[in-house]
């Protein structure tokens, strides 16, 4: 029996999962049973981070009427689906090597099948 806390919703049920049969007890909804079994079989997480933006020095940022501020330095990104927990740092290594050139649209695929997972790395913000 392995004890884990369900993270599907804020309630945080204390689940007990059988390591062989993946039977779950302690859950108060069906989603907890699915989470508990998956968490032992193949735990997955969405990875979010930022990538370096290549900028031209004369470009201002944002909608500021003042034209003030500086060009954005970082583009926020995420994996478009949960990827195996053990692959998180490999994904981070690929993100660290990436440079993007605007314009970028939210949802644009920046790295397909990042780190050999089924997930793609996508932009979570548009840069003009």
């Amino acid at each position, binding site marked *: 029996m392995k004890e*884990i*806390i369900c993270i599907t*919703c804020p309630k945080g049920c204390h689940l007990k999962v059988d390591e062989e049969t993946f039977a779950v007890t302690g859950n*108060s909804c069906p989603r907890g049973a699915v989470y508990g079994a998956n968490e032992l079989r193949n735990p997955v*997480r969405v990875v979010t981070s930022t990538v370096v933006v290549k900028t031209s020095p004369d470009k201002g940022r944002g*909608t500021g009427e003042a034209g003030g501020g500086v060009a954005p330095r970082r583009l*926020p990104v*995420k994996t478009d689906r949960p990827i195996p927990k053990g692959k998180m740092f490999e994904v981070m290594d690929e993100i660290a090597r990436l440079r993007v050139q605007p314009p970028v649209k939210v949802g644009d695929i920046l790295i397909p099948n990042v780190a050999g997972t089924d997930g793609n790395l996508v932009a979570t*913000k548009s840069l003009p």
Partner: protein
Amino acid sequence: MICHELVIIGGGPAGLAAALAAWNQGVRDILILERDTQAGGILNQCIHNGFGLHRFQEELTGPEYAGRFLDMVKDTDIQIRTDTMVLDLDGSRVLHTVSPSRGYEAIQAGAVVLAMGCRERTRGAISIPGARCSGIFTAGAAQRFLNIEGYMVGKRVVILGSGDIGLIMARRMTLEGAKVLACVELMPYSGGLTRNIVQCLQDFDIPLYLSHTVIDIRGRDRLEQVVVSKVDEKRNPIPGTEMVFDCDTLLLSVGLLPENELSRQAGVEIDPRTNGPLVWENRECSIPGVFACGNVLHVHDLVDYVSAESEQAGRAAAAYLRGIHPEGSEIRLVNGFDVGYTVPQRIHRGVDSVEIFFRVRSVRRDTAIRVMDGQTQIARFRREHMAPGEMENIKLPRVLLDRIQGDTPTVEIEAPAVGRVPDAPQPSTKGKPVVAADPSGHTPNA
């Protein structure tokens, strides 16, 4: 003087949602004032996912959630003026603003929505002793450095406070290659959501020390060590329990304070329990035509609730501009046992239905929330689990509201019956059975 129908102070999730709601009610002259160089507020730096589950039925990141609202604003004539600081607001709804492009301007607003959000408590606010070296950041400041500016603030990190921003930063710093040595929490429970404890600390084997605090900070120029000690029930450090961590960075995630300087300048009545304006059910403040929503009103844990509340404020501002004012005498909500505050604090008798938001003061299982009118129970809501880190809400429909005879109904948590000491006396408990507090888990007003 320049006049605008509706002026909204703050272009974060609260301001954007309030503006859109007012637009949808027919207000056409709406100006949002934002001091940053881009709208979107704190969501811009909250690059993690988990936003919008209630609102959009999907898990979005902060920038994506903000982007959805910014896209909707683009389809309207709502003006967003960035790089603009509001210096002063007075009781007749005149705003004094300054920006690099327009200089100083005074604006007369028909109605104002306060949507300034909140800011983090700092080292000064919690009086940590020790050296005044560099390397001590609030978690949100470190988040901005990392996610917006692109700077790592340190390599070996201790986090004080287990609020959600601190937990999120524990994961973020770890993924970026830092070593997070510990997360230290003064209270016997975490201030953050359970899911964040699991996916930000447990996933990376970062220890969480409950009932511990930082008692010393050491370092000449840069932070070198922090000393952590266990605390007793009264939260005093226990000698002999000290642990020394070699680290270059201390992140503080020790609470948020609504940013109400402008509200105070305007003379808006502030509730000392929320540190935000005292509001009616439509989010109107004590000054007519001034509304408040989002984290400036009370600190929320989910942006989805901020959006919903702000739409309410935006709709109410639109109604005010049309000359529609809620009538009905005042019902003043009283906080009963274990209820830290309620929003709204006041209700107009005769309104259709009211959702009441509040926080409990201690962790509880298998209990209930009660609304009492003197000795009469108006409503009872069962709860399997409640914690101070999670905002609660109950909905009172018209049929229940109409049953309230008195002017001061109480929202309270059903007290467990045995072996308890009396709670701190409250004016509302007069003539009622004495309620009880859990001596171990009870939190005072923080």
